[in-house]
């Protein structure tokens, strides 16, 4: 298939060989699970169980009432020990409402809904089942998946792109999934195509995963309309908009959605979760996580129950060889820092990485030499050096004028900068600042609107009173002379 050029991009050191050849192992059930009620983009789910309740595996424990939200299920059977704040993997580092489950070790399933009959199922039924199963985007973004399956009705879609690019270094969870369970992924893709009413699906896999390409190609050949496309290993190929551009040549206009181009992107992991929800009736209660980095004794891939603590996972890998210099969740380019190991695995956890300084090439920050490397690699077409220098000089607005809000925080600029300037940290600060200000502004506007409404209401009331008053006066005035006249006549 013909591929299209994407703007910018960097060739990264993959470092995937640490785990790419290791089969996924099923992690045993830990002694305690901390399951946050918000593991997705959107509104948190609301707990529907109480402390002391016994729950079974797969049972709904927190329901979603809002449109953009996802329900949460018990990862195994056991007792609800606590409902309260707990550390969660979130950039803010703030604790999140969390349901603590003490497993009883029986791992007893709740009564699962029967498999969906895809011959007869409507789009809505498929989307509803996926929604009930709490499936979210498994590529890290964790956007409720069902919302993106309902789009078929509103926009006319042509192509479903399945993102198996896995462009971040170290991570191999999608690679392993595609190697080990390709037939299930393909079943998931077919169901999604049916829900979206599209005839064509492209599975994009970076060329550095030949085994995944082979396995998926073998399975896709058996299905109609699904094609595997090998894409170059060029970061950030897995960014949805860039993947769409590489595969279709279409560039998503600013402020538009990819769906407006007739294309939709879902992750391979999501396709697998959709398969489990539809064919087995199982909610999303586990996922594959890559545990890697040179500070981990035996790096590997584990299928882990949601809520398992990172510490437990690291122990499964034989612990740390030495104190890591960086510990984070996700890939090294866009991952988020972990305060410590007492944080649970959530639906969007791709990996847990413990890196050593010598492998990160951390070096002292030097002044910008305007080498332009950051400009060349920026996939968003920005000028990172200028934005950073404006932010540094307290001119966040100036940075916004040259596109700060178009930055996708991919970190490519940061990766190539020979002066080791922490560019992304500037941008995150700048974006936080702009978001804060936008919120303040909208608050102010709300207040202003409120005040205006109130003064208008007062005004109206005053006018009404005046009118009544006038009326009364007139009537009074009319009545007097009339009576006068009357009396006169």
């Amino acid at each position, binding site marked *: 298939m013909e591929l299209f050029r994407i703007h910018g991009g960097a060739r990264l050191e993959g470092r995937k060989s640490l785990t790419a050849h290791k089969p996924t192992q099923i992690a045993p059930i830990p002694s305690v699970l901390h399951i946050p009620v918000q593991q997705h983009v959107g509104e948190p789910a609301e707990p529907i169980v109480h402390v002391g309740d016994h729950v079974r595996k797969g049972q709904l424990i927190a329901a979603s009432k809002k449109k953009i939200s996802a329900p949460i299920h018990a990862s195994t059977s056991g007792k609800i020990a606590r409902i309260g704040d707990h550390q969660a993997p979130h950039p803010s580092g703030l604790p999140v409402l969390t349901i603590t489950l003490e497993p009883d070790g029986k791992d007893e399933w709740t009564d699962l809904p029967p498999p969906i009959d895809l011959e007869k199922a409507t789009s809505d039924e498929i989307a509803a089942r996926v929604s009930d199963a709490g499936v979210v985007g498994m590529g890290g973004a964790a956007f409720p998946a069902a919302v993106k399956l309902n789009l078929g009705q509103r926009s006319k879609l042509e192509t479903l792109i399945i993102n198996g690019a896995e462009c971040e270094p170290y991570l191999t969870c999608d690679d392993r999934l595609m190697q080990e369970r390709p037939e299930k992924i393909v079943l998931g893709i077919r169901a999604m195509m049916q829900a979206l009413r599209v005839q064509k699906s492209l599975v994009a896999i970076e060329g550095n995963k030949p085994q995944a390409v082979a396995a998926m190609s073998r399975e896709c050949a058996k299905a109609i309309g699904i094609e595997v496309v090998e894409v170059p290993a060029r970061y950030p190929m897995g960014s949805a908009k860039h993947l769409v551009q590489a595969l279709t040549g279409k560039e998503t206009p600013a402020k538009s959605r990819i769906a407006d181009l007739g294309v939709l992107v879902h992750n391979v992991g999501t396709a697998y979760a959709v398969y489990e929800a539809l064919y087995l009736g199982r909610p999303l209660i586990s996922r594959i996580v890559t545990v890697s980095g040179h500070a981990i004794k035996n790096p590997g891939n584990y299928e882990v129950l949601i809520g398992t603590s990172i510490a437990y996972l690291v122990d499964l890998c034989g612990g740390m060889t030495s104190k890591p210099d960086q510990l984070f969740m996700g890939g090294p380019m866009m991952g988020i820092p972990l305060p410590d190991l007492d944080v649970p695995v959530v639906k969007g956890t791709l990996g847990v990485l413990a890196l050593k300084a010598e492998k990160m090439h951390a070096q002292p920050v030097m002044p910008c030499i*305007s080498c332009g490397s950051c400009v060349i690699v920026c996939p968003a077409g920005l000028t990172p050096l200028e934005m950073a220098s404006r932010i540094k000089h307290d001119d966040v607005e100036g940075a916004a004028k040259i596109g700060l809000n178009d930055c996708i925080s991919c970190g490519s600029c940061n990766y190539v900068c020979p002066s080791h300037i922490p560019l*992304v940290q500037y941008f995150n600060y700048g974006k936080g*600042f702009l978001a804060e200000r936008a919120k303040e502004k909208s608050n102010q506007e709300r207040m202003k609107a409120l005040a205006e409404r109130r003064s208008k209401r007062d005004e109206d009331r005053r006018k009404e009173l005046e009118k009544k008053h006038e009326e009364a006066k007139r009537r009074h005035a009319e009545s007097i002379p009339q009576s006068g006249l009357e009396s006169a006549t």
Partner: protein
Amino acid sequence: MTTYAPVPGGPYMRKNKSVQRSMVLVMLALLPATAYGFYLYGWPSIILFSVTLASAFAFEVVCLKIRNQPIQIFAFDGSAIVTAWLIAVSLPPWAPWWIGVLGSAIAIVIGKHPYGGLGQNVFNPAMVARVALLISFPLEMTIFIKPIPIISEMAPSLGDSLGIIFGGASYDAFTSASLLGTIRTELGQGMVISDILRDSYQPLAWMIGNATGSLGEGAALLLTAGGIFLIYHRVITWHIPVSTIASIAIIAALFHLIDASRYPDAMVHVFTGATFLTAFFIATDPVTSPMSPRGQLFFGAALGLLIYILRTWSVYPEGASFAILIMNALTPMIDRYLRPRIFGRTYKGEPLKSEKRP
């Protein structure tokens, strides 16, 4: 009032690259052409080169001390050495020692640190030095010599060389004018190009660098090899060198077509003078050239035009350094107007029009 405070977080991985590494690569890239220059011009050129580099390092350390900057980090970033190297290779190979020292002083003390040091200067420090020297010491800066390979009988010994560089010993027997200088002078005397170049039209010798000129500017092929090495290692991109050379070649060819008796052909302009040194090593200085590929293409094209104009009509037949300074001054403006296109937007920054879908 906002004050920037870094937000902790990734990325946690970097390319194994540094300013120092880039500088070392630039030096490596310059090495073949420079070594060839040493071969052609012998001991005096080696002494001048060493004096220039050593003094630049000393000035750098002094400036960093005065500005209270960490010497450990900055003195060894290699930038001062590269600057001095570029000055040295663009000097007449047997210039007196103080020309080299003064050049380093101007570049480092005036051209670099007053702006804030590494990365902050508006003008290419090496070219600031060269232009200042050209204007102040036109005589010393234009006494070129014929190539006399270091291995030949004629070449001065180490002792003689010390005398030439430090003692002002005369070497009139060896001097010669550069080709561009000759063309300029003889055109002025009413001769036509074909007569001027009758004996000296030797494109092959020019390409190799076996022609009168500055220490390291002649060896077009070796400089090109160095440039390709830098492009391969992503220290520079192809945009500036290609657009500069192409621009000079096209303009020269055009004028040659118009009047071959007054305007030498493209070969002369491309392969003599400092064209290759300028295109690959000086115009590509990251600090003083545009940041985006579009800007760089424009920069190179305009630079080629300016070099041609200055060589042809100004009093300085070696106009490249002036042209560089002018383009350096224009760089902030180029950067403002020739930005890359933002993903999903037009060059003006408006969202792309979405195709209407049913």
